[in-house]
């Protein structure tokens, strides 16, 4: 098995589950946080014992809302990670809700070894935040960014959402400009996506909410692309931009199809064998079940699948094309590549391919071509 250098930790607790969210997240289970953190620590130890893991280059603590953890709880986790072996220049990201970013927490996070903070800003507009059911204000989000930067974070990301019903192009650009003015190093701008299992999905199905049409969504997307480029950010993935050299290394590893271990409820892991086949495992989703299983045996795997080298190569290409600097992942698919180049969706350079503007708009169509 190939050595693993990336680690994901999932914290599935939230104060409120926003209506568009389809991640594995739960509100009103705060009482479970202490045993959950213990179970997570137990799973980390077990992973270290059974997998070829480390030194760890990237850690991503996501959720849910991991900023709900106390500093002690976070310390417990990062201590266990350090036991596995953390590379000296490792990237350690924590996702934070603007409401939780206090000066004390910022100090505590830095003290626990976190060096990249990803703040869920989403929008600065009151109407959009209300629609999205965010419990913080735009001002809270700006304050959070300032506290993080002032407190010592040199690598701050802001997550934003565009294509929110009721927010026109100008409103979206206002939010984007205001966040850029804060000097973040990294920015993720995601189109608000309707997932069928969410309350938003229900509202769209029943006609209560009407989503903007594809033209409007793309208009906001391309406007953001232009603005971020002008501001000197590198557009390195469909929805991600960074200051030069500050792309999210954890996500890059996944997009480059590198193996990783995921710990926590519902977390996925990906392993690669030397023959090129890929194995994915996923943990039980519910926190109760996870705690029960992981605190006992240190394992909470609920399912797995193994992809043949061919299918794995297709999957690698499917993900790889999302990297806009170009990818070598499609090199085993000369026919598909030619077809996509002819269709104007891919451009070829030195054997690598990258999405064209039209290719970005139809990236799923491109990705599907590589799947058997």
């Amino acid at each position, binding site marked *: 098995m190939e050595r693993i250098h990336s680690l994901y930790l999932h914290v599935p607790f939230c104060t409120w589950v926003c209506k568009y969210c389809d991640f594995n997240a739960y509100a009103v289970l705060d009482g479970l946080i202490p045993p959950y953190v213990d179970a997570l620590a137990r799973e980390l130890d077990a992973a270290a014992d059974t997998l070829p893991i480390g030194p760890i280059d990237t850690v991503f603590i996501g959720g849910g809302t991991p900023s709900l953890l106390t500093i002690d709880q976070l310390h417990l986790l990062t201590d266990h990670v350090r036991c596995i072996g953390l590379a000296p220049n490792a990237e350690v990201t924590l996702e934070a809700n603007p409401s939780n970013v206090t000066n004390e927490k910022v100090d505590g996070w830095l003290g626990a070894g976190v060096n990249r903070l990803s703040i869920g800003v989403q929008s600065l507009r009151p109407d959009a935040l209300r629609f999205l059911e965010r419990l913080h204000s735009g001002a809270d989000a700006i304050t959070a960014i300032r506290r993080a930067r002032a407190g010592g974070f040199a690598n701050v990301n802001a997550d934003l959402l565009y294509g929110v019903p009721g927010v026109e192009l100008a409103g979206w650009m206002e939010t984007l400009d205001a966040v850029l003015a804060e000097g973040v190093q990294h920015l993720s701008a995601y189109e608000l996506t309707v997932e069928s299992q969410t309350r938003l999905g229900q509202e769209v199905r029943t006609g209560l909410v009407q989503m903007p049409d594809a033209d409007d969504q793309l208009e906001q997307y391309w406007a953001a692309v232009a603005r971020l480029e002008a501001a000197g950010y590198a557009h390195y993935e469909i929805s991600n931009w960074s200051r030069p050299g500050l792309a999210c290394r954890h996500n890059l590893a996944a997009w480059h199809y590198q193996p990783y271990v995921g710990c926590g409820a519902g977390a996925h892991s990906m392993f690669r064998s030397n023959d090129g086949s890929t194995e994915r495992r996923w943990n039980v989703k519910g926190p109760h079940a996870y705690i029960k299983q992981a605190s006992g045996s240190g394992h909470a795997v609920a399912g797995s699948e193994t992809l043949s080298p061919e299918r794995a190569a297709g999957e690698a290409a499917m993900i790889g094309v*999302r990297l806009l600097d170009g990818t070598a992942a499609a090199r085993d698919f000369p026919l598909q590549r030619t077809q996509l180049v002819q269709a104007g969706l891919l451009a070829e350079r030195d054997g690598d391919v990258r999405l064209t503007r039209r290719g970005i708009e*139809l*990236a799923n169509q491109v990705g599907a071509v590589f799947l058997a």
Partner: protein
Amino acid sequence: MSTPTHLTRAISVIAHVDHGKTTLSDRLLEYTGTVAPRDMVEQVLDQLDLERERGITIKAQAVRMLYKADDGNTYQINLIDTPGHVDFSYEVSRALAACDGAILVVDASQGIEAQTLANVHQALDHNLKIIPVVNKIDLPQANPELVREEIEKVIGLPAESVIFASARKGIGTKEILEAVVREVPAPTGDSNAPLQALIFDAKFDAYRGVVTYIRVLEGTLRPGMRIQMMQTGKSFEVDEVGIFRPERTPVDDLSAGEVGYLIANIRNVRDSRVGDTVTDEARRAAAPLPGYRHVTPMVFAGLFPTDTEQYQQLKEALEKLQLNDAALVYEPETSAALGFGFRCGFLGLLHMEIVQERLEREFNLTLLGTAPTVEYRVKLRDGTEIPVDNPDKLPDPGEIEAISEPMVIATIVVPSTYVGNMMELSQERRGQFLNMEYEPGDRVVITYRMPLAEIIHDYYDQLKSRSKGYASLDYELVGFEEANLVKLDVLVAGSPVDALSMIVDRSKAQQQGRRLAEKLKTLIPRQLFEVPIQAAIGGKIVARETVPAMRKDVTAKCYGGDVTRKRKLLEKQKEGKKRLKRVGNVEIPQEAFMAVLSLD
């Protein structure tokens, strides 16, 4: 166990679709102890999964029941279950020819329908004693008294002979059996005469070859005999004869009046044709039984594998299916748009649907069927006449002297409220009005002469929808008639798609072209580029529509843990695309090729 001839009966159950024929048969089997209650599954006699699922009978079945009647005698009752659909009317006629009586089942709430009449006429043609049964009397909307009156007035059977029954509840079963032994005449054949046995169905068994379903009318059939099929002239040696109880049970012989099967190392159902007469090669009967007809397909369509790699598999599957389905014909066809496939002939639309479904299900193929068409006869200027069963193969208009198309007499039975709608529909479909009769129970029987091509183009669905489901239809082929027809072509992204061509009435061609283009626009999914759709008559474009290019298909957020789900989503989309056929660089779904069927 042998039964004296005077205690033998052979009957069939006839009914309009859904009037409860098969359920009634189930009850008879149960009541006579032919099938033990623990082995009872619904539709015992329908053996194909497809038959049970759809609740229809495709192949005829036979079963021997023993019934101890009130008169103290034990009777041997041979029951033949017949297909209930107009596509299989010839098979029904042969099954009836093998019987002496028929149980006529009429639904207590639906009353007499088109196929009830067609079946009764056939039964009377075969001099069958008819036992009328009003079924489903337990349903709240049942009106058995009215239906009984209808039976007397429309069919001419005395009201007092009608038995009220509910096959579902088992009401009336005994009365029906008593009527059968009392009313249906015993067979009159002579067991010592030269052999004459009527084939009413045949089935291919992978281990035994063809199992031929027969009724012995004269003489006796034994294993070891050399038999001859009097229509095809082929001879075989009989390995086994037997009866159905309901599974095959070998017996020493089958003598005059008995129903059963024979196995004689016959490798193809074509050599055991429905309606043919089996005789003793050593002692031939003077003449074959009357009524044999060579079954010819009425409806034609192309079947193409969506994956060109499956051509050979499709060929083998058709060969296998044909072993068991003498009515299915096919020949290789090449389409510029769809590649290599087969032009297949079917008895009707249901038969076509069934064949395609069996091919896909039993042989794991993914097929694309083109719209069904009839066979035209085209007279050329040079005096020759050619059959054309594929619109694309219609010769150049300059070479054509005249085109004839098959005509049918269509019988519609409908409540009087909908007479106007039925006439309007039939007139739109080039029908010539023949007759209309008002019957009791507010029922009207309307007959039209109309082109078969119009019937297969959505006529039945329209008939149903414009009569709120009340109308029923039966039709029979009556010959060919000259008509003013032209070919309508379709171009997708500038290239003609041969499989979308159709032959239409000249006066309606332009309108049909417009509708077809509009319809295709809704059926062809958005592609990566804009796709123009054009309809043309003789090279002249008569309609144009455009499918706009796909605007956007991109997942905003793709993180590691989400990759499996995302891949599965794309794989599912891609699986869906396998049902699409790539024509040039446009992907066209199966429904598009069927669009021509419903342009109203």
